């Protein structure tokens, strides 16, 4: 018996943390069963990044200048592409409604879903980024800060994106609308993430930008699941 069934049966108290753990485990298992889908997001990221040198020309100085921005914008787009995965199929087959009715707090379940989304979508992207950064001629110190920024920033993208994904559940306008809602909210993450690399290049540590990203992550971890849960309940009404 899974903790979920047990909680429904009223045998265990439905604690928030066990709700998070259950949702992470469930969504991870589901995601790993369709590995092709996970690969698509990563490939999308790699391809978008690889298109830029073809578009702007192969001069190393130029590529080095635009590298961090390109990687970050591509990360934003890759995150956007995969957002419908968080709630889409669960909304379609009614699982989301069951979760809303379950004794677990809905924000906890949603936190777990977002965490699983980041682990399967954001984390691989962070891991492969140094390799792509090298293609743009970034130095070791810049690559370290770029990865640290992505590590702190991509969870924010998943968290903010979940709000947008929940708000647009079941709407015909779908993907384009989601981009319109979410991309403006991604702006600070982009600025601080790419700005950290620029700061290293300018002889600073980039610590200020990373601290701001970390602060943003903490705020998003607290606020985004609550907002997403509200939005999910609105969509299910």
């Amino acid at each position, binding site marked *: 018996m899974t903790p979920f069934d047990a909680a429904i049966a009223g045998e265990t108290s439905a604690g928030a943390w066990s709700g998070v753990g259950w949702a992470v485990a469930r969504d991870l298992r589901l995601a790993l069963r369709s590995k092709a889908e996970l690969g698509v997001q990563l490939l999308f990221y790699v391809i978008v990044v690889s298109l830029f040198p073809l578009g702007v020309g192969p001069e190393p100085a130029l590529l080095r200048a635009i590298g961090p921005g390109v990687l970050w914008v591509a990360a934003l787009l890759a995150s956007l592409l995969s957002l419908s995965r968080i709630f889409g199929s669960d909304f379609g087959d009614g699982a989301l409604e069951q979760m809303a009715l379950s004794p677990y707090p809905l924000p906890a379940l949603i936190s777990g879903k977002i965490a699983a989304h980041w682990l399967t979508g954001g984390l691989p992207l962070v891991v492969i980024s140094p390799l792509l950064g090298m293609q743009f001629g970034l130095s070791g110190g810049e690559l370290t800060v770029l990865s640290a920024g992505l590590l702190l920033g991509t969870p924010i993208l998943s968290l903010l994106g979940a709000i947008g994904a929940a708000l647009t559940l079941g709407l015909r306008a779908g993907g384009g609308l989601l981009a319109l809602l979410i991309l*403006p909210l991604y702006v600070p993450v982009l600025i601080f993430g790419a700005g950290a690399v620029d700061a290293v290049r300018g002889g600073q540590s980039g610590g200020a930008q990373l601290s701001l990203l970390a602060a943003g992550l903490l705020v998003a971890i607290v606020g985004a699941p609550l*907002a997403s849960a509200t939005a999910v309940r609105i969509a299910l009404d």
Partner: protein
Amino acid sequence: MTSSINWFRFASPASFFPLAQRLAPWFAVSAALLAIVGIYLGFFVAPTDAQQGEAYRIIFIHVPAAWVSMFIYIVMAFWCAMSLTFNTRLAAMMAQALAPTGALFTFIALWTGALWGKPTWGTYWAWDARMTSELILLFLYFGYMALRNAIDDPRRADRASAVLALVGAINVPIIYFSVKWWNTLHQGASVSLTSAPTMARIMVAGMLVMAFAAWFYAIAVTLLRVQAIILERERATGWVGELAGAARGAK
């Protein structure tokens, strides 16, 4: 208890509708009068700027538009919070009625800013912190309206767009400061607005009068639009039916 009853009396669309009907013309007339005074002050009384020449006079449109565009977003977020907290229909209708006017003023601010930038800075667009955050504000307005339009059920549209507006409202200061720091990190702005010579008192007066004109215009238009929204969404109710019947009888 009596005070709370008074507070919520106009929260009902049926009792707010006549109030909006009565107030809208007053705000419209005040806006027109203030605009006449403001334009007169700005274009005939205010002296020519020593550095910027006549081109500076666009601030009499630009600055009020920018102020009102940001102020409307705050008011909209306030009504959205009211709508989510008290679950009142009218608060959501007010937010819905405010959004297009807010987007209009944001657009005017951007447009006039570009026209002012060309003779003054030598470029229409400069990725200045204020311009960039104003542009993002425009996207936020568009996102709000697009989400509303995409949802057929008005109650769901109310609540979903309210969540979006509130998330956006939390983000607006973050966006502003992030863009500001980004701008200073990349390069100093070639011309700063704040280093401009202190303005003559008459210029400030003209700008303030124009700001009130823009504000009153926004209120008048919002009250007009909210009347249309109320009629459209309450069309199944008895009082709207009576109103329609009376209008038909008058013809």
